[in-house]
């Protein structure tokens, strides 16, 4: 099974090359890879139907209990066949759709990448493996929606899809981890046996809630549905594949997959079924409102996704089977209809149904494909769509609560009208301005939707084989053997009458659609307060918050940052010392030597001089005095090594200062008296805090274990008598290596700052070296400093 994923990934890597060498016909070749995987999946059919699941396992991070484990059962097989089968057709179709575009290779690569991720989702047995593939589908979906990366609306839609589905994924992860904790395993196959225990667990409700948010966002359930219509900004092959046939069903897959573990409770029913029902109805209503072909299809997809969620939420054996039947039927007809919409768009560059008409004669093959898919969508004999709808009505009719059946019929009436808008409106009537020049596309454009339509028809005429698969899938969802017997003709009964009612209602709705405008005008206000507005508001607020807090915290004033740091440090030190101080601070022995006190006074006086200096020379001199005096303190308290280093470094520092700032003007007084007063107060408080902290540290300390360790081990272990040196070059040699590294990095920094300069500056220097006239005209400070620069080689002559 890993081989399948690798094959698709390798094909993804080859795709750009294929496009460069073969061009758009390479789609036929690339499609062989998913077709091959499709064939391999078909080979497993017999064993899966006979209840023998196949699994594969690779240890990933054994210490974390993390494994890459895959398992193929009825549900995975069903999804896998859809992913690879429709995927192969989409690759061919995409080649023709994007024909002369250089980006075709990229599109193929991303479609294949997505295919691998989606196949991983449905094959994964470890929940974390599943999650990783799940997130990969979100990322590839983001890249594919934003395929036209130069268009702002594509960017916004892609970001929206990523934020909604990615945010859902973020919620899903803790849900899956809770599931793993409650079930003591991350393998779905192990969790199946502990379903009873998990449903009794105290974390059951939070876990279910978190997982469902992930599934609902992915599968565009109300109120997260708004990203899916916007995702139609992607090229049509992507919409056909990701946003109707496969990716949006990942959430449905997850709900189905976890049903035997988490399902069957009242919580399961009440958290899922109502959401699905609302989504179903909202989707159907919005579908007949829309005028863009792809928007109509997107809302119809939302409606069907709602149906699937509802059926899984109800969770009787009949509804589970019905969900799978609807899922299969939908994948075939909706994928096909999207491709038809793409073919129309490709031919006339128009998707608004009000501008379309009379395409029947111009595009006969596309029309046939559209009819095949459309009849399945409305559920007419003898398509598989009809069987699916019959199964659905039958399952809903068996429930004690009639409201689900009523909602289903209502929703289907809307969908029938929507199918009319997509399949009848563009092809009948007289030609419009937009469709005058219409012409049929190539085989690659009408072939794939026709193939999908014919498959839908064939499954309807001969439903025995698909029944086997649906039985195997239902077994995986229900956790026990479910008898499935699909048949085209059930005789005249209530469900058939309901089907007829649906068709008639849909036809009337389509016929009288102009009357709906009044209703739509009224509910437009309602839609303005919909979840999409909430999303926009949230996005804007987050950005505003970020901008606001950045403006406050990162305001560009260095002293503000310093004041914040110093203030917070002082505050937290005092908070920590509050109770401790009185009990620990005891009087210290007064053992001063007068020369030591004098030295301390010298340091303080020099520091004050440096602060009060009005020329840089005085300040640097005072700084030097401080440095030398500190070195003297080191001498007095037994640290000659320190003193020597300090003397050398201090001398170097002073020389460096003098060299760099010899041309600098005296200090100007830049701050007001008030600011200086405030800063002085902060500085004195901070200094006082340090003094108190230091005294406190000295009084509470009673032993020096690390120092004593070094002193006692210096000779026996490191064979050195100067303990300080032994520490530096032996015990802590790596630290010294770090120090040397810092020093060299700083040296490189100093050197490059002095040597590297923008070209304009270098030009100026050369100019001023060539003649004095330039430097007379250009007497900006920068130019003056150039002339005064001591290091740069260019100015060596000056």
């Amino acid at each position, binding site marked *: 099974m890993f081989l399948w994923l690798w094959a698709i990934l390798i094909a993804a890597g080859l795709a750009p090359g294929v496009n460069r060498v073969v061009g758009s016909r390479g789609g036929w070749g690339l499609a062989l890879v998913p077709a091959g995987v499709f064939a391999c999946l078909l080979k497993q059919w017999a064993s899966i139907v006979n209840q023998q699941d196949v699994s594969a396992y690779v240890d990933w991070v054994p210490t974390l209990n993390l494994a890459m484990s895959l398992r193929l059962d009825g549900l995975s097989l069903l999804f896998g066949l859809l992913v690879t089968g429709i995927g192969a057709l989409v690759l061919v179709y995409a080649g023709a759709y994007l024909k002369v575009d250089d980006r075709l290779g990229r599109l193929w690569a991303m479609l294949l990448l997505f295919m691998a991720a989606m196949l991983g989702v449905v094959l994964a047995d470890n929940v974390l493996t599943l999650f990783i593939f799940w997130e990969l589908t979100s990322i590839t979906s983001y890249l594919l929606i934003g395929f036209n990366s130069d268009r702002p609306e594509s960017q916004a839609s892609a970001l929206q899809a990523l934020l909604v589905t990615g945010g859902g994924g973020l919620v899903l992860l803790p849900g899956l981890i809770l599931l793993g904790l409650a079930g003591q395993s991350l393998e779905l196959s192990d969790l199946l046996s502990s379903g009873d225990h998990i449903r009794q667990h105290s974390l059951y409700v939070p876990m279910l809630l978190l997982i469902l948010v992930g599934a609902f966002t992915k599968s565009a359930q109300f109120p997260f549905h708004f990203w899916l219509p916007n995702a139609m900004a992607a090229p049509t092959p992507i919409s056909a594949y990701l946003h109707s046939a496969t990716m949006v069903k990942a959430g449905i897959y997850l709900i189905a997959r976890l049903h035997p573990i988490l399902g069957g409770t009242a919580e399961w029913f009440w958290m899922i079924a109502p959401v699905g029902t609302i989504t179903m109805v909202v989707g159907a209503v919005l579908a007949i409102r829309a005028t863009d072909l792809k928007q109509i299809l997107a809302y119809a997809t939302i409606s069907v996704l709602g149906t699937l969620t509802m059926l899984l939420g109800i969770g009787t054996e009949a509804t589970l089977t019905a969900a799978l039947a609807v899922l299969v039927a939908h994948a075939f007809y909706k994928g096909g209809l999207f491709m038809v919409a793409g073919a129309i768009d490709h031919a006339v560059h128009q998707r608004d149904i009000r501008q379309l008409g009379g395409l029947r004669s111009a595009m006969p093959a596309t029309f046939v494909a559209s009819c095949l898919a459309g009849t399945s969508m409305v559920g007419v004999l003898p398509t598989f769509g009809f069987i699916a709808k019959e199964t659905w009505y039958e399952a809903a009719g068996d429930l004690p609560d009639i409201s689900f059946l009523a909602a289903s019929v209502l929703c289907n009436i809307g969908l029938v009208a929507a199918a009319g808008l997509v399949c009848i409106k563009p092809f009948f009537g007289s030609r419009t301005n937009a469709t005058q020049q219409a012409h049929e596309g190539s085989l690659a454009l009408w072939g794939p939707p026709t193939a999908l339509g014919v498959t839908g028809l064939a499954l309807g005429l001969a439903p025995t084989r698909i029944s086997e698969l649906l039985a195997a899938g239902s077994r995986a969802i229900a956790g026990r053997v479910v008898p499935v017997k699909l048949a085209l003709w059930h005789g005249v009964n209530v469900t058939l009458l309901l089907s007829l009612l649906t068709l008639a209602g849909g036809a009337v709705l389509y016929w009288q659609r102009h009357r709906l405008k009044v209703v739509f005008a009224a509910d437009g206000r309602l839609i303005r307060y919909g979840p999409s507005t909430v999303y926009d508001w949230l996005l804007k607020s987050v950005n505003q918050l970020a901008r606001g807090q950045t403006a406050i915290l990162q305001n560009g004033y260095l002293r503000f940052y310093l004041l914040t740091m110093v203030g917070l440090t002082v505050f937290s030190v005092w908070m920590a010392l509050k109770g401790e101080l009185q009990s620990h601070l005891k009087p210290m022995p007064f053992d001063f030597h007068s020369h030591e006190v004098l030295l301390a006074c010298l340091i303080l006086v020099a520091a004050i001089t440096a602060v009060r200096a009005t020329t840089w020379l005085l300040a640097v001199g005072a700084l030097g005095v*401080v440095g030398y005096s500190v070195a003297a*303190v080191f001498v007095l*308290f037994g*640290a000659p090594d320190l003193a020597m280093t300090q003397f050398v470094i201090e001398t170097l520092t002073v020389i460096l200062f003098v060299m760099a700032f010899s041309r600098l003007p005296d200090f100007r007084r*830049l*701050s007001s008296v008030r600011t200086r007063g405030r800063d002085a107060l902060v500085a004195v408080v901070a200094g006082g805090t340090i003094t108190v902290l230091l005294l406190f540290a000295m009084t509470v300390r009673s032993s*020096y274990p690390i120092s004593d360790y070094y002193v006692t081990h210096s000779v026996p272990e490191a064979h050195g008598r100067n303990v*300080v040196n032994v520490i530096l070059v032996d015990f802590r040699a790596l630290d010294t290596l770090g120090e040397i590294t810092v020093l060299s990095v700083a040296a490189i920094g100093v050197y490059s*700052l002095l040597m590297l300069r923008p070209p304009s500056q270098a030009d100026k220097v050369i100019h001023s070296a060539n003649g004095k006239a330039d430097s007379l005209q250009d007497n900006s400070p920068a130019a003056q400093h150039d002339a005064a620069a001591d290091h740069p080689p260019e100015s060596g002559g000056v």
Partner: protein
Amino acid sequence: MDIVLAITVGGLYAAGIFMMLRRNVVKLLIGLGLLSHAANLLIFTAGRLVRGRVAVIPAGETQPLTIVADPLPQALILTAIVISFAVLAFTLVLIYRTIQTLGTDDLDQLRATDT
């Protein structure tokens, strides 16, 4: 002596922080220098202060005969002196180039990120 050194350290910190809060970049640099002296002296004082007895073990012995100066802060400070010099030198050149290129030593005029 501890108290005197502690007050000195506090004074150096105060002077360093005050200078770093100034708008003039050269003063900022002087403040940085004061602050590194203050930090070194802080570490030194926080260790065991012993007058005059260097942490060297006499020849022929494996242990010091009397109590000696604390070697640990000394090792830390030795590293700190060198590193603070590196930082100071780098900052100095950076500020030197900034003044040279932008023609100002006022930090309030250096707020934009791309000039």
